[in-house]
């Protein structure tokens, strides 16, 4: 707090010093309207300017001419200002400028298009190459698949052909019937815990391993 006061005092001193140097009393330059007439001017009667008839006529003529001439000059200047915005030549010039600017813009645009076209060509060529390789790989894969499938089928056919040697056909049906009749198979058997096959109607009788042929009749 004390410090603050000190600072304030210091500034106050400084201000006082500057005041003494710079401050000047400024009084109004003109008497305000609401103040009364100065006592010294109270009874003063201003003298009317005495202008002779010739002089007033001349002054009237001069001022009239001045006003008329100034008006026409002002009008001319206004016209020139207006034509500087809307004159035919000015408009033409603006149009030419715009045309040049348009051509410049189109040039820049064309350059950009050309650059982009080169990039696009490159990219499309790369993509085409990749696609071609993909298709080629797929084709090869398909070919291999086909080959494998064919091999499987071939195997099946081969096996089937081998089997077909034992097929019963119209030619060897009699032989097959004969053979079947000759060798009757009895499927009615039992199994004990040791896995021995017990054939026949007597289960207690251990099988001898020899098959006993029973007559159908």
């Amino acid at each position, binding site marked *: 707090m004390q410090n603050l006061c000190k600072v304030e005092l210091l500034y106050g001193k400084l201000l006082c010093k500057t005041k003494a140097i710079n401050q000047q009393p400024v009084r109004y330059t003109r008497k305000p309207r609401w103040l009364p007439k100065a006592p010294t001017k109270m009874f003063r*009667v*201003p003298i*009317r300017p005495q202008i002779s008839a010739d002089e007033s006529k001349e002054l009237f*003529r*001069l001022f009239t*001419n001045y006003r*008329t*001439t100034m*008006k*026409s*000059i002002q*009008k*001319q200047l206004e016209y*020139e200002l207006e034509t500087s915005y809307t004159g035919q030549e000015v408009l033409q010039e603006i149009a030419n400028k715009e045309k040049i600017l348009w051509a410049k813009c189109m040039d820049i645009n064309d350059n950009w298009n050309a650059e982009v076209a080169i990039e696009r060509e490159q990219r499309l060529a790369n993509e085409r190459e990749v696609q071609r390789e993909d298709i080629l790989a797929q084709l090869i894969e398909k070919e291999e698949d086909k080959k494998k499938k064919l091999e499987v089928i071939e195997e099946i056919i081969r096996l089937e052909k081998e089997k077909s040697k034992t097929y019963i056909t119209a030619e060897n049906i009699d032989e097959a019937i004969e053979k079947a009749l000759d060798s009757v198979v009895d499927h009615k058997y039992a199994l004990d815990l040791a896995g021995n096959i017990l054939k026949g109607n007597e289960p207690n009788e251990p099988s001898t391993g020899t098959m006993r042929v029973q007559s159908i009749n």
Partner: protein
Amino acid sequence: MSVKLIGRTTNLYGKTLWEILGNLRTTGVGRLVTRNSYDRYEEPCFFKVLSVEPTAQIEEKARKVIVHAEKIFRGKHYKEPVEIYSVSYKPDYRLIPKDEEQLWWDRLANCKLQEKIVPGSIELPPLMKLVLERDNKDSNIKLQLKIRGGRDNVAKSDITKTASYGPSFFKNQQSS
């Protein structure tokens, strides 16, 4: 007894319109009235009163009055009657005596209207001309002088004439 005037001089000397017309029979309808400030013109200027309508007097001020009148100004008879109201309080009016009325009408009949012919165009100002030459614009043009279209303006423009900036130019153009 000689009168000594004190204070500022004034243009107005005479009576207000009501002071004149209020004391006349039928409020002076049909009589001629003129203003003292019109004495500066050579041509006759006066009013012929057509109708009078007084208004209320406010305090101690001069009474205003609505007067419709035919106006003759600088030897020119106006087609439409005019209304005098806002300037009717001015102590500037003067009644024309009945025996002088015919004199005023004669003056009007015999008066010669003033003529004033002014040039219709003027040369370009020198600096403006230089500027136009600098900007490659047409510097041979002439500026049209347009006359103010007032009711009392007698000036007429002569298109064939061209004014210049010579020192003695204006005096030659002036004709009355």
